[in-house]
């Protein structure tokens, strides 16, 4: 009897903690915004040349022909710290097929970035971002922002906020297996609906809207 009574208390506490954990998880994983770019509106990703942690310059256009995952992040950004291990995994998995992840750090200086790079065993180049490059990509006024660039150098998707690895992986695989052109509108709409079954996407006039009702800004690639 005594044991059973205490076990009930333990069970109740466990259920309470699980419930609290579910609430914390929901708060933590706030919905991210995702924007898919219809073929008629895909801008060429603005080129840049920025210094890596080693000091060597990295030029984006040198990676034409690869699928580029361009990640704007910072060491103090908690959602970024959660995404980066996933990017490391994806880079390992799809490097041979042509994936190239590039991190653009929005930290004030390189030292914390170097420490972070070692600690998280990052396996892709990281450059130090600038205001100019941030503005070229529509403004980086919140982190993280991850941009997928196809083999043709055009922007295919933009993710604002922490995003599940499975979403990135689905898009990366499609882009890796796509041919070099910018694809068709039908392919974009079909691919968007395929991997976002739980999201509410509305396709109107060729523009794909995420559930927040936002669309890709028409001036993508140029300063606001």
């Amino acid at each position, binding site marked *: 009897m005594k044991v059973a009574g*205490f076990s009930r208390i333990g069970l109740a506490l466990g259920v309470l*903690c699980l419930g609290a*954990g579910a609430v914390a998880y929901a708060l933590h994983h*706030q919905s991210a915004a995702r924007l898919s770019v219809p073929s008629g509106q895909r801008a060429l990703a603005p080129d840049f040349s920025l210094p890596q942690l080693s000091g060597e310059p990295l030029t984006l256009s040198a990676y034409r022909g690869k699928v580029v995952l361009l990640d704007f992040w910072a060491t103090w950004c908690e959602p970024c710290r959660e995404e980066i291990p996933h990017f490391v995994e994806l880079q390992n998995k799809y490097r041979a097929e042509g994936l190239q992840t590039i991190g653009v750090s*929005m930290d004030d200086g390189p030292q914390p970035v170097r420490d972070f790079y070692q600690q998280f065993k990052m396996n892709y180049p990281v450059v130090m971002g600038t*205001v100019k490059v941030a503005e070229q990509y529509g403004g980086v006024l*919140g982190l993280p922002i991850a941009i997928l660039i196809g083999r043709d150098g055009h922007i295919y998707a933009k993710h604002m906020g922490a995003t599940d690895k499975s979403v990135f992986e689905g898009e990366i695989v499609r882009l890796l297996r796509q041919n070099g052109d910018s694809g068709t509108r039908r392919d974009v709409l079909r691919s968007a609906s395929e991997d976002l079954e739980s999201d509410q996407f509305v396709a109107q006039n060729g523009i794909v809207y995420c559930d927040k009702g936002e669309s890709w800004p028409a001036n993508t690639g140029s300063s*606001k």
Partner: protein
Amino acid sequence: MTISGNSKVILAMTTIFAIALGAYAYQASLISDSHLISPEDLVKMLQSSKPAKPLIISVGPHMLYAQAHIPGAEYIGPASDSNGLQRLQTRVESLPRNKFIVIYCGCCPWNHCPNVKPADDALRGMRFTNVRVLYIAQNFGTNWVDKGYPTIRGE
């Protein structure tokens, strides 16, 4: 009441789990609602004809401030950094303790912001009585700039 070995394990595990969840709660979310000001309310203040305007201080990252910030906002530096916090304290040290101050960041979703709570705590620790934290739910771009609120581009 005697406690069996298994029950001890259950109690220990749930206690540890509860403590971990408590620590998991992000700092910004612990700021009292009475300390907050919405973007809409701040915009109304900025656009009003009343002369008294708050001292607005950006306690977020420089790269964010350099791209866009609230008109009149001063840049102090990330309050999650000890240097930034020191600069904040130095900036306000000579001010009357009833000075109306608004602090903001906007780097990340509210529950993940590492800067606003330390700044709010520091100012209240210095006995400032009229401090408000700008509540930015997602980020400065989404909740301020994209709303068309007054913005200065560049530094």
